[in-house]
């Protein structure tokens, strides 16, 4: 993460494929979206999944994607979007 996230930021989801319990769905990895809301800080499930304490807690954001960016064969309306909850450690801010 290059700098703190602010609402309205364009972010790229890290294109990483680690083993373990990963909550970031495959279909958004490497994709670009817009941060539209901060939910709260949550204990990190990637750590909780192995019986550890999940600290430090991480902010979770709503990130909005264009459906046509997620699916190359998307046949719906052009303005359709998808909102996914993503933990901060999966977000990369874009150079401006």
């Amino acid at each position, binding site marked *: 993460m290059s700098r703190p996230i602010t609402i309205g930021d364009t972010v790229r989801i890290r294109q990483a*494929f680690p083993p*373990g*319990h*990963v909550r970031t*769905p*495959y*279909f958004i990895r490497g994709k670009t979206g817009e941060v539209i809301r901060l939910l709260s800080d949550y204990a990190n*499930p990637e750590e*909780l*999944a*192995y*019986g550890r304490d*999940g600290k430090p807690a991480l902010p979770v954001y709503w990130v909005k994607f264009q459906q046509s960016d*997620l*699916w190359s064969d998307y046949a719906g309306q052009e303005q359709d979007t998808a909102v996914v909850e993503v933990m901060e450690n999966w977000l990369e801010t874009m150079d401006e």
Partner: protein
Amino acid sequence: MRRHHDMGGQAAGPVDTAERDYAPWGKRVDAIVRLMSDKKRRLIRVDELRRGIEDLGPAAYEEYNYYERWIASTTNILIEKGILGIDELGRRMEDVRARWEASK
């Protein structure tokens, strides 16, 4: 690489939206896992349960139904933590099978 359980957006055909009633054993599994994860016990967390389900491998993931996945995952995690012993568990499973065979 995509892990098997992470199947959002994959071709899967229509969703079966029929209401279904869970078998009594499934409800019992649900209750036991929730009791094991309550504030008093903290033997297993939902994140551990999910990790265990994701680690079952594609064949078992497809073969098992919802609560069978819970049983398999919970069992593995309790063994890892030393709460269940393999020998003890094997013997109990034998007993249950024998009782079931005798009742048929």
